[in-house]
């Protein structure tokens, strides 16, 4: 690991003051420390922000404000999250291991990097995300775990988070602070598609800090869930995952939220499918048709064509489960 200087911030303003051009903010370290050991990440300064905000605030308007320093395990176990946003608890608990969830923070989860093996292979592979302009060895390589939606000729990596898929489905917003002041960005706009600059993964400006995640009051979120399909039953990244919330009135979909994980460079909010579903029949056939419409623009690579059908089936199964109909 390349030497660095460590600072511990007491609050957000202190964190911004400590962070210079070559600094990175440090949460639990479960991804960043690993990447530093591989020398994929080479910050000169680490600013520890785990003490900056570690509260979950239940606000009067029914929303939750989740401090960026809240541990993944704390958020998953929080009673308001478990009962009012179960998809979020289930998504977090589907990710990593209990030990890692006890360390990892909410802010860090948003900023974790892809698990594309070519991105990690610092010495043996070309990667536009790690070394812009170098090329991408995943496109012609072993790409079973890679993206089917929104990829580019420069990058086919996926975002690895489970938690972010639920946040994207449940209309969450990211609270950000920086030299230019405070701002609030919808979770669905926070991560970028790769385009020609896959090294730029979010809309954060250099030096900006995530301070909190806001979960709006959302009635149908109480009837939500998360399903993750992976190579083994536990402790593996998603091949495909689905977060969904559904409200059915008199056999018709009165409201729905739907997002996919494991398929793109960002959590994929399925806006096309939602538009098709709203007002339509709450049947497995309608769910399947909406999933197929969402996936119409999916582009398979050599090894990951199975993800298109897997995603369609998983969406259909999850919505059918929430609707109480046979898939």
């Amino acid at each position, binding site marked *: *690991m390349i*030497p*660095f*200087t*460590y600072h511990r911030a007491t609050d957000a303003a202190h964190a911004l003051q400590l962070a210079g051009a070559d600094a990175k903010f*440090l949460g*639990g*370290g*479960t991804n960043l*420390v*690993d990447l530093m*050991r591989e020398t994929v990440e080479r910050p000169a300064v*680490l600013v*520890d922000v*785990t003490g900056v905000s570690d509260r979950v605030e239940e606000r009067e308007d029914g929303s939750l404000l989740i401090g960026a320093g809240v541990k993944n*395990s704390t958020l*998953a*176990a929080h009673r308001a999250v*478990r*009962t009012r946003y*179960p998809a979020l*608890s*289930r998504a977090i*608990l*589907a990710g*990593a*291991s*209990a*030990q*890692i969830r*006890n*360390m990892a923070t909410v802010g860090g989860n948003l900023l974790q990097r892809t698990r594309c093996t070519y991105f990690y292979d610092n010495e043996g592979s070309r990667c536009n995300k790690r070394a812009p302009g170098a090329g991408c060895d995943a496109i012609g390589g072993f790409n079973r775990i890679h993206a089917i939606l929104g990829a580019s000729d420069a990058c086919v990596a996926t975002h690895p988070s489970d938690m972010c898929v639920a946040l994207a489905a449940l209309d969450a917003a990211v609270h950000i602070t920086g030299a230019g002041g405070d701002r609030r960005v919808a979770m669905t706009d926070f991560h970028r598609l790769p385009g020609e600059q896959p090294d730029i993964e979010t809309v954060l400006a250099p030096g900006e800090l995530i301070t909190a995640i806001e979960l709006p009051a959302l009635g149908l979120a109480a009837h939500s869930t998360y399903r993750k399909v992976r190579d083994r*039953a*536990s*402790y593996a990244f998603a091949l495909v995952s689905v977060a969904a919330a559904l409200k059915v009135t008199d056999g018709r979909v009165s409201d729905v939220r739907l997002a996919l994980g494991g398929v793109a460079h960002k959590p994929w909010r399925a806006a096309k499918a939602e538009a098709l579903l709203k007002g339509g029949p709450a049947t497995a056939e309608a769910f399947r048709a909406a999933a197929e419409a969402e996936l119409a623009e999916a582009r398979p690579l050599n090894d990951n064509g199975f993800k298109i059908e897997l995603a369609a089936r998983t969406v259909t199964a999850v919505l059918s489960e929430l609707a109480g109909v046979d898939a």
Partner: protein
Amino acid sequence: MTIQVNGSRVSIPDDPRVSLLDLLREHLHLTGTKVGCNQGACGACTILVDGERIISCLALAVQYDGREITTVEGLAKGDTLHPLQAAFVEHDGFQCGYCTPGQICSAIGMAGEIERGIPSHVTEDFGAETIAVSRTEFQERMSGNLCRCGAHNGIIDAISEVYGNDPGALERFALVEEPAE
């Protein structure tokens, strides 16, 4: 800056690159905690911090100023094994033994999580105040600890014996008692 390790106060090294795992093994010569993958994939380095399980390989020691660490060396009381250690022997919860310290520390942390009513990926009722323990719950909750010898059935047998039958066991054997200074 200092931390407590099995009841003894120790200094944190000046170099912020030192992980808790390297502090334990290379600086304090507490080699019970094992280096497996050193990248957060295997759980061999699991330790308890203030009673919560973490992986020590990706934990920078400098982040744990003032915290209390328990390793496998801190579990037995003199010659009397922790009940889970004894159960691992009884149920052949290992072959080579390399993953065992991490498995045992992880299971003790897990017991505390169940005791506090924290759900898992396989828990069906998220509204319930208490967790109904089962083999399936133990298997899911222990998935962060790999055993390449394939002793998982013995490991789950040992955990089930200690934490699965006696409702009071979770509380009694979850958190390690405060070691003497």
